[in-house]
Every structure is written in C-alpha cells, then in structure tokens.
C-alpha cells in the first residue's frame, strides 16, 4: 500500500519538474525575444551623418559652394539639383516613400530673420515630427537634427547656415 503511495508521489514530482522546465524555458525564450526583438535605433547617427554630408557640400574650408552663392548672388535653380550636387539619393527600393527630408537655410549676417537661400529636398510630411518632439523624444516619430555654422562666400560676405535633417525609417529602428 505504501509502495503505491510513493509511486504516485514520484509521478507528481516528475510532472512538477516538467512544469518548471517549461516555465524556465519560456522565461529564457521571453528574455531573448524581448532583447533581440528590439532593433538598434541608429537614426540619430544617420541624421548627423546626413547633416555633415550636406555641410560639406554647402561649405568647404570655410567658403560657401559657388554653385549656391557667388559674389553675394544666390543661384535660383539650385533646389532641383541639390541632391545630385551633394551626391545624395533619397530613393530606395526598400521603402515606398522617401524616408528623409532636408532643409538648408542660408542667412546673411545682416538679416538673420529672412533667409536668402532656402533649399528643401525629400518628403516634407516628416517635418511635423520635429515640432512634436521639441520637449520630449518620441521613439516612433522621425528623428530631427538641427545644425548651424558660419561661412563666407568668395567676396567675403558673411553667412549663417542652418541645416535640418530628418530621418524616419521607424519600422527598421523601433519595435512597432
């Protein structure tokens, strides 16, 4: 009689061990899934790299690109060919919509309220993300980076250049 009781106890214990094994395995799976299921968000770096590329294109060694401003005169048609001039291509097979937006504003030092040259490229619908993130970063929205620097043209006229770069690509950088 006692032997039958002991056998039943052993069965219960082995079922318990299986249950614990499943719980632990499930826990390990959960941990790995949570950690490796979240992608690395590199959009901030990407927006910085894009900003630097644009800055290099707009001004080199302290002087503004003569294709943009020469002797104080701005080039009127630069907007269309800016991307080509800066060796940038925003179109990708991976995305239906363009995932980037850029804005370059050049101000004369005498008038910092009105830009003398305004260049935009990419999809401007991502621009609204920047306004929403002035106080707090929201991961699922596009990343915006603002940069500004000083440069002169070939006639030594002084300019302040402001660059805004926006990178969306939320699906590849954030767990949605």
């Amino acid at each position, binding site marked *: 009689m006692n032997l039958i009781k002991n056998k039943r106890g052993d069965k219960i214990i082995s079922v318990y061990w299986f249950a614990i094994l499943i*719980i632990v395995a499930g*826990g390990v799976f959960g941990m790995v899934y949570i950690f490796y299921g979240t992608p690395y968000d590199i959009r901030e770096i990407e927006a910085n790299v894009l900003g630097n590329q644009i800055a290099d294109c707009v*001004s080199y060694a302290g002087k503004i690109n003569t294709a943009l401003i020469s002797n104080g005169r701005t080039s009127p048609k630069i907007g269309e060919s800016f991307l080509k001039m800066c060796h940038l291509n925003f179109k990708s097979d991976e995305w239906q919509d363009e995932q980037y937006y850029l804005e370059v504003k050049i101000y004369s030092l005498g008038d910092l309220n009105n830009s003398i040259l305004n260049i935009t490229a990419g999809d401007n619908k991502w621009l609204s993300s920047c306004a929403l993130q002035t106080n707090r970063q929201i991961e699922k929205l596009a990343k915006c980076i603002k940069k*500004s620097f000083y440069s*002169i043209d070939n006639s030594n006229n*002084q300019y*302040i250049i402001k660059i805004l770069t926006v990178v969306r690509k939320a699906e590849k950088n954030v767990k949605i």
Partner: protein
Amino acid sequence: MLRYKKIEKEAQIGETVSWIIATLIIIGILIIFILVSSLLSNSKIVRVGNVETDLKKTNLLTEKTSFAHQLTNYKNKDIIENVLKKND
C-alpha cells in the same frame, strides 16, 4: 500508530510548502530577468554621445566655422558665436 501518521502528514505539508516557495522563487527570478532584459532592450538607441565615432572626435561644423573666422580675420566673431549658440 496515530502519532506516526500525524508526523508523516506534517512532513508532507512541510515538503509541499518548500516546493511551493521554491516555485515562487524561480518564477520571481524569471520575472526579474525578463524586466532587466526589457530595460536593456530600451537602451538600444545609438546616440552620437554614446559611441566612439568620427562624429564625436571632431566637430565638423566647428572646424568649418573656425576656418571662416580665420579667412575673415575674426570679423564679427562675437556676434556670430552668439547666433550659433542661440541656434544650438
């Protein structure tokens, strides 16, 4: 005989309670680890300040600005620096 049965029952209860506590500890530890992995996954945002890149080592825009200052013999330097600070 009765006393022996009572002792056996108490032993069984003691063993069951220790198994239940062991189970709760295992589940508790698992929950802690899952929470830690969740916190670690939230820190997978690569920022310029956190990574040793060329972006951090040299500030390209500061270089450009100082080149321009040298070319104009630092004309209006204070005004320009103030404007750039405001923009940052």
